[in-house]
């Protein structure tokens, strides 16, 4: 039993295995799960695409596509799915289903013959988060349209689904989800904070099981579609929680655990600049989104919505420069201060920079949750309307069409945002010091080296507090 306790309260090694309940294990081992949720979400996304296409240039507030994707789904991702259940959205995501179908030659069953499609390997140089980073950043260039123009949402989702299918035809397994999908990238990063994980129960059982069926597959389940080795899982970042390892493990040695938030941040495996930049980009986008969507500056809204070409290009330039260069440069400066103050000459600046970049994950997630409060509380009531009239055709399927726009608890918005930012700031602090202990070999070095990073995290939180509620 570890003596390390989060906030002095929760043992960092604490786990609660949900799959110890027979019903849940049976569900996870059934081939209908997650196929049925995927098919259900496919149905929802067909309606979203239809609403996006038929809604055309109409306003977004009464459009099913915009409301479900950018108000409900996005907020659910940030509130619950990622911070609590890690990557459970990937579990039920319908985007790769067509590619999977072609590759496997089956929707339900396990086809252990030669896979369909070309099954090429993804280029080694791109086996990281960089493509996802750029794809996600470029996607945000059009953020001014997605929330107000249904057609823009249709084009974005249509492109993602089409790309997932084409990549499924060309590359092996879930290469699209692993290396390209813009939604996958930030989920992977923030799922390190998530309170759920899939891990092997007894490492010894896996060690003695020579035929690694979780990786290779058998008649019960496919080898890990995410090209991982489930018997050796250490962190959530690249596990799409597809549950195939539960099906293919003959010893029922996989477990779905609840755990303290953030423990993956301390797992020193596959840390790299790509994940560091993902943190910076997510932080930058959170700031830019707040400024352009929820802030009082109309001129910024005009720039993001391309009222003039010059303004729009300025937005793209500043946004890119800020997220890709300014934030990393500031972080590099504080990392340098950390190294100098620590007095340690052996640890490389790169290692200091990369390790401490993980302190931005709780703060970034907190900023996104706080931002999401500003989306759902004022706009959530539109969801009741669009459920009854998804295409703005005057339908009234559930009798809720007439419910007027009703902001909910908006008088508490500032408090909720402030508390969220402070809570996640505390998480950044407690993990930050542990990361410092991992980075510098001596306790005194770690203490001194931690100070500049602690100052930066405090300044960042103050900046967000000022932005959101100042």
């Amino acid at each position, binding site marked *: 039993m570890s003596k390390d306790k989060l906030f002095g309260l929760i043992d960092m090694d604490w786990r609660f295995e949900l799959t110890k309940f027979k019903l849940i294990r049976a569900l996870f081992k059934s*081939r*209908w799960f997650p*196929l*049925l949720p995927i*098919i*259900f979400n*496919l*149905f929802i996304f*067909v*309606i979203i695409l*239809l609403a996006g296409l038929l809604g*055309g*240039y*109409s*306003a*977004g*507030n*009464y*459009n099913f596509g915009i409301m479900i994707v950018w108000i409900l789904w996005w907020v659910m991702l940030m509130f619950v799915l990622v911070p609590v259940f890690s990557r459970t959205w990937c579990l039920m995501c319908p985007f790769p*289903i067509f590619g999977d*179908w072609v590759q496997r030659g*089956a*929707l*339900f*069953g396990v086809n252990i013959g030669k896979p369909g499609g070309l099954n090429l390997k993804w280029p080694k140089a791109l086996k990281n988060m960089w493509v996802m980073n750029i794809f996600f950043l470029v996607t945000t260039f059009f953020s001014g349209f997605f929330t*107000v123009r249904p057609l823009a949402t249709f084009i974005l989702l249509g492109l993602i689904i089409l790309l997932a299918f084409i990549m499924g035809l060309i590359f092996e397994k879930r290469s699209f989800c692993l290396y390209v999908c813009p939604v996958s990238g930030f989920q992977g990063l923030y799922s390190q904070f998530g309170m759920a994980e899939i891990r092997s129960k007894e490492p010894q059982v896996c060690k003695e099981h020579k035929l690694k069926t979780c990786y290779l597959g058998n008649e019960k389940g496919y080898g890990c579609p995410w090209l991982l080795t489930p018997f050796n899982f250490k962190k959530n970042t690249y596990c799409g929680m597809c549950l195939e390892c539960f099906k293919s493990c003959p010893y029922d040695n996989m477990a779905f655990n609840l755990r303290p938030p953030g423990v993956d941040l301390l797992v020193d495996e596959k840390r790299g600049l790509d994940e560091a930049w993902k943190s910076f980009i997510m932080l930058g986008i959170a700031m830019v989104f707040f400024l352009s969507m929820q802030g009082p500056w109309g001129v910024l809204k005009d720039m993001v919505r391309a009222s003039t070409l010059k303004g729009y290009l300025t937005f793209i330039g500043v946004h890119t420069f800020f997220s890709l260069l300014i934030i990393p440069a500031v972080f590099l400066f504080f990392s340098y201060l950390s190294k100098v103050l620590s007095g340690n000459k052996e640890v490389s600046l790169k290692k200091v920079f990369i390790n401490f970049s993980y302190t931005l994950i709780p703060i970034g997630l907190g900023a996104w949750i706080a931002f999401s409060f500003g989306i759902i509380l004022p706009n959530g009531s539109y969801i009741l309307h669009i459920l009854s*009239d998804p*295409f*703005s*055709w*005057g*339908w009234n399927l559930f009798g809720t069409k007439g419910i007027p*726009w009703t902001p909910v608890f908006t008088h508490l918005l500032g408090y909720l945002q402030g508390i969220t930012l402070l809570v996640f700031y505390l998480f950044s602090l407690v993990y930050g010091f542990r990361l410092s202990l991992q980075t510098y070999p001596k306790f005194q070095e770690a203490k001194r080296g931690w100070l500049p990073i602690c100052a930066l995290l405090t300044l960042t939180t103050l900046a967000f507090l000022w932005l959101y509620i100042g």
Partner: protein
Amino acid sequence: MKRNEFVAVTLMILSTIGAIFAVSSYEFYRRRTPEYFFVELIARSPNNGNWYPKEIKVPYGKKVKLHIRNIETVSHGFALPDFELEPEINEIKAGEVLEVTFTADKKGEFPFMCTVWCSEEHLRMSGKLIVE
């Protein structure tokens, strides 16, 4: 296993092609109610294209169901002073779709217009109903 595969593929088809078919069939059925002559009218400020269509032709003596769809981010209104609208419209909020009915019991050309100050060009936001 083959039965399960068949069920899975059927569910997949229902959730995609089936959904599209169901949506379009329902709307098609709704619009071709024999009792009404159906017209969809899109509300846009004059600088964004004005009413579409600007001229509506309806048959004399028929009940008309008018769907007015505000596709803009400002409120609009609708008035057709020569006919009794059911229900009366005060405001069509941004993105909203309102349904009104009336009986085209007079022949001729009749103006319709926006009743909410929607832009500097608001006064030009008008169209024509032709009953023939």
